[in-house]
């Protein structure tokens, strides 16, 4: 037994380490998928040392770090990892990684965009239908025993024939668009650049898109350009019947202005999975029946998580075998 233990210790000492500052949900729920013959995890969160001291003491030779929104990879962190060559995130979003610094130092970045598109799109459509047809509010109405007392519930709004503006036509946006077409919606979009092979009308600004849409679905990444891109002006252009759905990042919307618009009835409703300061959600929203809230989990299904784990591990094993990365983020 001792012999075996010694041997496995010795072997594990040889395996290159992958630093994990805080475990992404994928790791917490599917840790067994991260057992590999090519690497081992260096779990910073299990140490009582302050992070910078831990990194200085233990992460000097670390070549790869697995991160997520809860553990951003800033220039400061990168500075403490002199051997870093790869940043892997288990998310689609990369806004928590200092891409400029990574590019400057030749550090590769991989994400998990493709595996989440279906679930993200399903959730976006689910939220949109819920707001328009008042599914959650009606469910509460029934459970509170109001149907026999107060009679028929208020009328909702038809999805078919609505003009839906998709903001960002990447993996998520395209998947959302494809689904909405089957409901008889007219899909419009805004994106950094026009996509020539796409049948939907392109709008070069979000403001113009909002003015011509009944609903907006936010599917783009969070960057310096998209931060607070959806503001009061855009929301007023969307209008009193307009519905906004956000499955991307909270900070793309000026949350304070959106809450004011909702409270004042200047837009019709909202379906929100993400917020500027999670897990804090503006309390004014809790009393509104035309808002549906979700705790940043549009991709939390076993299928997505298993696929994400496999992609993360696949990227790590490729990296440590000097093979091409599976899902590198291409710098533009």
């Amino acid at each position, binding site marked *: 037994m001792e012999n075996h233990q010694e041997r496995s210790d010795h072997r594990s000492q040889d395996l290159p380490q992958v630093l994990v500052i805080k475990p992404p*949900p994928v790791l917490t*729920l599917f840790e067994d998928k991260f057992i590999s013959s090519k690497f081992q995890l260096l779990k910073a969160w299990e140490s009582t040392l302050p992070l910078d001291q831990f990194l200085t003491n233990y992460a000097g030779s670390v070549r790869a770090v697995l991160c997520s929104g809860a553990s951003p990879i800033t220039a400061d962190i990168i500075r403490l990892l002199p051997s870093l060559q790869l940043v892997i995130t288990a998310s689609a979003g990369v806004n928590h990684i200092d891409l400029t610094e990574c590019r400057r130092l030749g550090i590769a970045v991989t994400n998990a965009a493709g595996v989440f598109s*279906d*679930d993200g*799109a*399903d*959730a976006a*459509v*689910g*939220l949109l*239908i*819920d707001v*328009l*047809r*008042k*599914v*959650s509010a*009606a*469910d*509460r*109405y*029934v*459970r509170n*025993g109001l*149907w*026999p007392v107060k*009679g*028929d*519930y208020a*009328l*909702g*709004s*038809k*999805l*078919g*024939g609505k003009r839906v503006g998709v903001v960002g036509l990447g993996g998520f946006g395209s998947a959302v668009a*494809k*689904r909405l*077409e*089957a*409901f*008889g919606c007219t899909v419009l979009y805004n994106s950094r650049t026009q996509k020539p092979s796409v049948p939907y009308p392109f709008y070069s600004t979000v403001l113009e898109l909002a003015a011509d849409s009944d609903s907006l679905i936010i599917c783009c990444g969070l960057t310096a350009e998209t931060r607070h891109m959806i503001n009061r002006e855009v929301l007023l252009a969307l209008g009193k019947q307009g519905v906004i759905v956000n499955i991307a990042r909270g900070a793309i919307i000026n949350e304070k202005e959106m809450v004011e618009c909702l409270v004042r009835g200047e837009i019709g409703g909202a379906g929100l999975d993400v917020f500027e300061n*999670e*897990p*804090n*959600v503006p309390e004014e929203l*809790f009393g509104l029946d035309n808002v*549906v*809230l*979700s*705790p940043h*989990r549009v991709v*939390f*299904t*076993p*299928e*997505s*998580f298993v696929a994400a784990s496999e992609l993360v591990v696949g990227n790590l094993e490729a990296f440590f075998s000097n093979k091409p990365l599976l899902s590198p983020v291409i710098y533009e």
Partner: protein
Amino acid sequence: MNNTCVLVTCPMFTYLEQELETRFNLIKLWDHSSSKAEFFNNYSSSIKAVVGNTKVGADAKLIDSLPNLEIVASYSVGLDKIDLDKCKQRGIKVTNTPDVLTDDVADLAIGLALAVLRKVCVCDQFVRSGNWISGDFGLATKFSGKSVGIVGLGRIGSAIAKRAEAFQCPISYHSRSKKPNTNYKYYSNIVDLAANCEILVVACALTEETHHIVNRKVIDALGPKGFLINIARGAHVDEPELVSALLEGRLGGAGLDVFENEPEPPEQLFALDNVVLVPHVGSDTGETSKAMADLVISNLEAHFKGKPLLTPVI
């Protein structure tokens, strides 16, 4: 036409009542509930049309009491509340509101499926109650790619199939007979359909044959990982069996727009996280309600002008 007496059976939609009032002598059955005998003495022989809905239609008793009834125009597509045999016997015409509500009902079917599988309502409650601050949520069930079995491949069933296909759901169906011109897999037996799909959607008409078509056997075949979506009629499902299956974990979950005893769904379901319950709102949008009302009016106008009915049933 302004003198023509039209009876409306229960409050349905203000716009419909207003439009009826401008064209006909509208009599509201519920205005006379305290003096039914008197009402029938005064009005019964002058009523030529009845506008009913899914709550109060035109049963044998009502039809028998109206000797000069010419037409029943239902503010619904479902005909289960109308005694069609009696109407046929008496030569009374019947119209309903097909097509205009197909999209809304199909949208709701998918919306309910997404809400149940992805726990949309539960998540919303989780956030509203402040629980996100203290803890995290678990995983939901993926919807895309799940196999969808549709009971009844009529207008609404086909519309549901078309939408589910956009989510890459393989589609299969059960109906009285196989439909030509479709690639969906057909099951002549509903238990086989339930055994071979993950989400069973009820979308057929309610008749004697389809009463309790979703029974214990079907529910067992669907199983603890299966989901039932009902946007048709409560009586399609053996409700006590459904409730016990859900309470005992023998069925994965349910999204229900209709119940055997509306407006009182089984209270035992109210505490469950894997059900979504909505109060018969399948066609309840402003747009569709108006379109249905317009169709009722058009049918009545056509009838009284001697023109062809727009959406006759018989």
